């Protein structure tokens, strides 16, 4: 027997599915919702529904958007011939924060992950291939994570999109700004040396 009424148990169970939410937090949230006004509870339910109903993937870059093409792909001031490839939509925000990248994006929605059965055929790259094949792109910057999976994805991508006239680059890996070289691990240091540039 559950210690809560059925609708409450159901709400707690649904909340528990969210990342980082355990039983205790789910109960706290559920009771908060129960105590809130009808309007607030309805607004929350509607927001959850709308996010699924109105958001979709940009047909050009796979970013999550409510208008297609997305704001980056439809911007006349951004360089559409420069494409930065990222693993997740949230990675775009990290790059946008630099305020120094004025190209467009392509979102893979994941990376190659053999241990999870994810191979290259599961990556969303068909629309990127079309852009590249159509001669719409001068440079592709591959900004997947500096992990084994991110590297495997980068290497696979570069092998498949490479063609005359297209520049394919990989973001640099290395020592974090503000840290100390002394504390860098062997592989980070090696990558930093590989990615050195001329001054």
């Amino acid at each position, binding site marked *: 027997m559950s210690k809560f009424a059925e609708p409450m148990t159901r709400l707690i169970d649904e909340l528990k599915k969210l990342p*980082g939410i355990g039983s205790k937090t789910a109960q706290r949230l559920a009771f908060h919702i129960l105590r809130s006004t009808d309007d607030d509870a309805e607004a929350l339910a509607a927001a959850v529904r709308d996010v699924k109903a109105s958001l979709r993937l940009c047909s050009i870059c796979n970013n999550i958007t409510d208008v297609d093409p997305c704001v980056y792909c439809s911007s006349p001031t951004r360089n559409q011939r420069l494409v930065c490839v990222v693993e997740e939509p949230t990675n775009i925000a990290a790059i946008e924060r630099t305020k120094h990248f004025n190209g467009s994006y392509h979102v893979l929605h994941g990376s*190659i*992950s*053999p*241990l*999870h*059965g994810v*191979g*290259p055929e599961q990556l969303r790259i068909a629309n990127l291939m079309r852009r590249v094949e159509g001669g719409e792109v001068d440079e592709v910057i591959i900004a997947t994570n*500096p*992990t*084994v*999976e991110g*590297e*495997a994805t980068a*290497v*696979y991508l570069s092998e498949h999109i490479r063609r005359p006239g297209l520049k394919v680059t990989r973001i640099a890996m290395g020592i*974090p700004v503000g*840290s100390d070289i002394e*504390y*860098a*691990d*062997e*592989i*980070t240091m*090696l*990558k930093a040396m590989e990615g050195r540039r001329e001054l």
Partner: protein
Amino acid sequence: MALKESEAIVLRTYPLREADLLVTLFTRLEGKVRGVARSAKKSRRRFGGALEPLTYVKASYEDRERQELTRLDSCEVLESPLATQVSYPRAVALAHVAELLDELLPDREANDAVFRLALSVLAGLRGTEVWMPVTYFELWITRLMGYLPDLSECITCGRVLNGNRAFFHALADGLMCLDDKRLASSEISAESRTLAAQMFRAPVESFAGAPWPKALGADLRKFLIQTLQRHIEKKLVTAGMLEKISS
């Protein structure tokens, strides 16, 4: 409790709570050990690239009273798979080694032979060659786990198979002669059986350099994977991924 220090190979990591990572290590000191790396997900400062799968590390960890999970204190990279280019076939091969070690090794039981095998195969996987080290690893790990039957005789009639055709089946515990083979058996060539015999006599380095296409020893690998999967009673994810690689 005291801090333990051991060479180790990182097998897998899983996100745990907001900022931590659950790490499975194959330590030289006491075999497979599971531990928590606090704040490893959020701040990479402490562990850097050391927790990437198949990184050879020097790990310090501390067991906690009445807790199954150890606390991973630090990991120093001895060798990273990221030091050389990670092609897709190489990524799958590395994942295959990690999956096999994770599935086959019992918790907290040192196995120095398997540890040495893993290290030498990881070294063999530094370059672009994939099928040779994978074949070598599958063969040896099957033997070291005690799952490899005698490849020289028929399990049904005991006849010597050397010089004769030999067959295997997903539900059979060894090889069979032409007369005793089951329905829907696969054949393992004499060439592949010779290869296995050679691999038992020489270190992995001695097979490096020569071209090794996917077809070479494919029947042997299929037999080994079937044998391993029968013992662990589940399908290996990475075996299917390897199968799909084209060359």
